[in-house]
């Protein structure tokens, strides 16, 4: 039987690639020195403890080396990265006050429109600063706080001080330290006890300046029995120089609370995406991650869930699509630290046109976590023989009461499946399309509608006959 190949269209990127002129009012010097860090801190009117935190982080950064595993990061030269770019815009609560070019960018990305129709609050960050933030009045009345990190730092300093980089300490790894030193922007969400936020909040991060870094910090605290759905979107136009994203997300899910954290990451192909995300879940709490990685040149992203209280749960759903010139090293880590905790990890990776997709995970069950249950399922689809797909899960289990399962498959679209569908009167093209759609369906159904549409476009199938 002659073998045919399926060709999957690349992501339509025109929309993301529209660049604005760099009209920043302030840029730090490129590189990373104590002066740069002090300068950023001064620009941002940090309290003294934050300046100290930044300087301490810088020290840690200088003392740590690059990870000895994962993608090669040698092309990243911090001397060429501008760590702080302040756009010519003040934080505003109305899109009318946002400068025209910046507003147009977010318009094209559909943010103000989504705000009208399906979101309870929106934050928009442009380069290093948040330019727009809004939240529905009804939520404010219930005590929900949704604002940019800078405002949070001045208005809710005590809360920020209590939680900031406590879950991801700067010494965690080199890029956490870098983040601690030069962080800027990001969102702060506080949901008080018992408040259910039914409509999602969304923050969108856009990096416009070439050769710059974005280091936003997202801090979310969901108090007892409260619930929240938070959506994060990221994109940038393509430049010929390396851009860096080293954000940090810290999520605190308290007793009986529920947090869903959805991300669609669509960075341009010159971006190094070295992001750190971590959640700590208390008794009966639930963290749900939905993570789509489509963009960037190199990604290292492994959201971590620490199941700290009895019965805490984690659901992780992820999809990664690595195409030409991309090396996407993604996955998840789960730490079971209390009895009866459970986790379910389900991921799909697709690689094509020389792209390299790696699924990497860690499941750790400590001695304090009897009756932990964890099930990991990862499937990889390869669309040609010049790409790579690697799966590297690790499990470290202590005690005798855990129930752990892991399953992974790798392969191409099977001829039998095509044959089966064609026997039922479906054309070959459609059969292939159905199979790929079916492959990502478990993930697509977890995504907010507009993102599901975006992903379906991405998996826009075109049959190209035999190649290779």
């Amino acid at each position: 039987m002659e073998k045919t190949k399926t060709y999957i269209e690349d992501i339509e990127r025109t929309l993301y690639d529209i660049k604005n002129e760099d009209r920043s009012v302030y840029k730090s010097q490129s590189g990373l020195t104590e002066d740069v860090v002090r300068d950023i801190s001064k620009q941002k009117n940090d309290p003294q403890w934050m300046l100290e935190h930044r300087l301490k982080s810088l020290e840690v950064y200088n003392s740590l080396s690059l990870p000895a595993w994962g993608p090669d990061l040698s092309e990243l030269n911090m001397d060429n990265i501008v760590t702080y770019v302040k756009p010519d815009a003040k934080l505003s609560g109305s899109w009318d006050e946002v400068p025209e070019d910046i507003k147009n960018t977010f318009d094209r990305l559909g943010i103000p429109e989504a705000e009208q129709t399906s979101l309870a609050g929106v934050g928009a960050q442009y380069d290093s600063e948040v330019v727009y933030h809004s939240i529905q009045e009804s939520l404010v009345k219930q005590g929900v706080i949704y604002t940019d990190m800078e405002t949070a730092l001045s208005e809710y300093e005590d809360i920020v001080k209590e939680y900031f980089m406590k879950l991801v300490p700067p010494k965690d790894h080199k890029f956490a330290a870098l983040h601690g030193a030069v962080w800027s922007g990001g969102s702060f969400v506080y949901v008080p006890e018992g408040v259910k936020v039914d409509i999602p909040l969304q923050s969108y991060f856009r990096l416009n300046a070439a050769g710059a870094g974005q280091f936003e910090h997202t801090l979310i605290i969901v108090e007892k029995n409260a619930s929240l759905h938070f959506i994060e979107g990221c994109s940038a136009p393509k430049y010929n120089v390396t851009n860096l994203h080293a954000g940090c997300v810290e999520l605190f899910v308290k007793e009986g609370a529920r947090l869903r954290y959805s991300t669609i990451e669509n960075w341009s192909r010159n971006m190094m995406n070295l992001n750190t995300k971590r959640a700590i879940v208390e008794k009966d709490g639930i963290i749900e991650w939905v993570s789509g990685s489509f963009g960037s040149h190199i990604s290292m992203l492994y959201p971590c869930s620490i199941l700290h209280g009895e019965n805490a749960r984690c659901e992780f759903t992820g999809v990664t699509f690595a195409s030409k010139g991309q090396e996407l090293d993604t996955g998840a880590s789960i730490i079971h630290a209390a009895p009866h905790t459970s986790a379910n990890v389900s991921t799909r990776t697709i690689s094509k046109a020389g792209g390299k997709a790696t699924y990497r995970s860690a499941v750790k069950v400590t001695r304090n976590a009897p009756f932990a249950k964890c099930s990991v399922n990862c499937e990889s689809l390869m669309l040609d023989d010049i790409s790579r797909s690697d799966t590297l899960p690790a499990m470290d289990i202590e005690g005798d009461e855990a129930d752990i399962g892991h399953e992974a498959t790798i392969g191409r679209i099977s001829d039998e499946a095509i044959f089966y569908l064609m026997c039922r009167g479906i054309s070959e093209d459609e059969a292939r399309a159905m199979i790929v759609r079916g492959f990502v369906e478990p993930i697509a159904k977890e995504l907010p509608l507009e993102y599901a549409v975006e992903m379906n476009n991405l998996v826009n199938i075109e049959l190209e006959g035999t190649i290779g």
Partner: protein
Amino acid sequence: MAEKIFSEIPMRTWHWLGVNEAGIEENVLLNPVKKTLEVPANSENDLTVVYKEDNYGDISIKVGENSCLKLTQVQLLPVEKDHANEVTVILAKGAHLEMAVVEAGAKKTVSKVKVVLEGNNSKADVSVLYFGDEKRHIDLNYVMEQKGRNTEANLNVYGALMDECRKVCRGTLDFQRGSKGSKGYEKEQVTVLSGKVRNSSIPIMLSGEDDVDGHHAVSIGKIDEEKMFYLMSRGLDLKESRRLIVEAAFNPVLDKIASEELRDEIDSYIKGRLGKNE
């Protein structure tokens, strides 16, 4: 004396997991017992290696075209000794490896097995049994490199752990570019019998080829309570029931060992440990 790195996984991961490499005291590696073997084309060969005393064994085998090798390696060292073993098998076109491995003795054992499926249509079936109790340390690293077209690799690992045993099992299926039409299957099934065991499993699958079919699965859990209930309700005591269930899990590997004498020896070795008082 210092520890020396004995084996590494083909692709590194987080340092904090402590699974990237396996080390052993340098003096264990001082006097290797080396064995090389070439199986000529179109022939069959059996090789059985039983380690009872040796610290370090190193076996290297080439299997010729359309030949078959049955390799049995059993490690039953006394519990106060450390042990290291390594096996490399290269399979030519149409060659077939049937390998049964038993890791049941020694205080600390490190083992590395590499099977290179170089020729088209070569096939490897590797079945492994390990048993760990007390404060023993078992560290395994199996790599199946699939290079030829239409190769098939099966790695089945069965293990039981009790007391304060520490075990690391790394199994890699590596579909290299050009291994079109190849299949790989890897499974590890771990039964944990008592509370202070530490168990690490790292099933790795690497692929530079799309026209392959790879699957790996790991399951880690305690002994099936329903089976225990069934046996105990028929008058068997707890230890006896447990022993029966564990032995049944090992049978797929033990069945592959041709020598009845050796099978009995392994059986009574494990039985003795399973039956001891806790």
